[in-house]
Structures are given as structure tokens and as C-alpha cells.
């Protein structure tokens, strides 16, 4: 019962702060709302028994990625209200298009009849443990893991090169 309430609470927090991220005029408020969304998502990971992923999610997203976003907003001095010069027509069309995509996705989920009855199941504290994930990651997924490190190296070199002053 408790985790059922937790599910609904976290879901509402995630959805409403995502809406706040989209519709707030100030980019700094957008970043803060998205951080709240990420914390709610981390809570969902906990409820699903993925403790390691929840911790990594908070560290990587709230701790690294959103700080990077805040840094860029600060350096570009974008923390002022922006007025977007678009017609109400194009704005309402974009909202309609996004809403229709959401409806299509929800309809597709509704059609998955065989999933309907499956409960999310008991809390399994073993599955998401670091030891368990590490065993899978370093045995079956060793090659993708190394490839990911190469990807990171490439991204790092690219980011440093792109932000050099001489390119401007």
C-alpha cells in the first residue's frame, strides 16, 4: 500500500515538474524543475528494485549533467525572461502535435493486453544490487563497456576542441 502511494506521488511529481520545465519562461527554473523530475525518476528506480541505477541516476543526471546545463546558462547569461516571437497559431499546433503523439503512445500501451494483468511484483532487493549488475556488466557486456569508454574519450576530445576560443 505504501509503495502504491509512493508510485502515484512520484508519478505526479515527475509529470508536473516536467510540465514546469517545458512551460517556465526562465531557463534556470526549467533546469531546477528537470532536476526534480530526475529525483522522482530515481525514486521510481528504487521502487522497481534498481538501487544501483537510482544512485547512478542521481549522481550522473542531477550531479553532472544538470550542473553542466546550469553552467552553460550561467556563462551565456540566459537567466533572463525570454519572449518567444511566435504566433499563437504555431504554438497551439505544436501542443496539438505533441498531444497527439502522446495519445498514440498511450493507445499503443493500452493494446498490450498481455501486459495488463502483470503486477509489478514483489520488491526484489537482490536484482539491482551493484554486485549483480557488475557481474553482468563485466562478463556479458564487456565489449560494449569498453566501446562506451572509447565513446567517452571521443566526446571529451570533441567537447574540448569545440569550445576552443580560436574556432570562434
Amino acid at each position, binding site marked *: 500500500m505504501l509503495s502504491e502511494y509512493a508510485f502515484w506521488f512520484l*508519478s505526479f511529481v515527475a*509529470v508536473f515538474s*516536467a510540465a514546469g520545465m517545458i512551460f517556465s519562461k526562465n531557463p534556470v527554473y526549467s533546469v531546477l524543475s528537470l532536476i526534480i523530475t530526475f529525483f522522482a525518476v530515481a525514486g521510481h528506480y528504487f521502487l522497481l528494485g534498481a538501487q544501483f541505477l537510482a544512485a547512478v541516476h542521481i549522481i550522473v543526471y542531477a550531479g553532472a549533467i544538470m550542473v553542466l546545463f546550469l553552467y552553460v546558462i550561467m556563462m551565456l547569461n540566459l537567466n533572463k525572461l525570454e519572449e518567444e516571437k511566435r504566433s499563437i497559431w504555431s504554438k497551439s499546433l505544436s*501542443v496539438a502535435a505533441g498531444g497527439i503523439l502522446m495519445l498514440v503512445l498511450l493507445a499503443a*500501451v493500452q493494446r498490450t493486453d498481455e501486459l*495488463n494483468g502483470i*503486477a509489478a*511484483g514483489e520488491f526484489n532487493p537482490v*536484482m539491482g544490487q551493484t554486485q549483480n549488475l557488475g557481474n553482468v556488466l563485466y562478463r556479458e*557486456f564487456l565489449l560494449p563497456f569498453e566501446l562506451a569508454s572509447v565513446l567517452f574519450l571521443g566526446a571529451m576530445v570533441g567537447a574540448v576542441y569545440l569550445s576552443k576560443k580560436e574556432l570562434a
Partner: protein
Amino acid sequence: MELYHNITINHYLVLAAVLFGMGALGILFRRNAIIMFMCIELMLNAVNISLVAFSKMWNHTDAQVFVFFIMVVAAAEVAVGLAILMMLYRNMHTTDTSVLNNMKF
């Protein structure tokens, strides 16, 4: 533990669909490139939620490893993308994509 049986996998899929749709809506709605970037992050997270729910459903860790790799790719993407945005701002003095339309057909 008997306290978790009313929430089905479908609940999580609906949540993921709503979050994904809101990310897509944000990309269409906003013209600030940084906000559009954050909407992409939101969509990636929606997919991650559904993957973790499937991992729970099959009682198997493979999907969680996929989520791990999605996080890696998202981090790399943000690093490069924000560097591109910095350079765009330095050269064009805006991050508004309705101004940055030189490549528009």
C-alpha cells in the same frame, strides 16, 4: 511483500509514454536550444523507466545494463551538444532556433 501488487507494468508504461510525449511536446513548443536539449534528456529518461519496468517484469538484469549504457550515451551527447551550443552562441549571439535557420530548406 504483499504491498505492491496493485501497480502493474502497464502503469509504468503509461508513465513512460506520458513523459516521452511531454518531451516531444517541449521540443516542438520551445525554440530555446537549451530547453530543447533538456527535453531530449526527458525523453531518454522516459525510455529508461520503461526499460527498468521490463527488467522488473522478467526479473532479469540485462535491461538495467541497457539503461546504464543509455546514461553513458546521454552524458557524452550533453557534453558535445553543450560545447556546440557554446560555439553557436559565441558566433551568432543567440540560442533561439527560429533565428538559427541558415540550414533550413
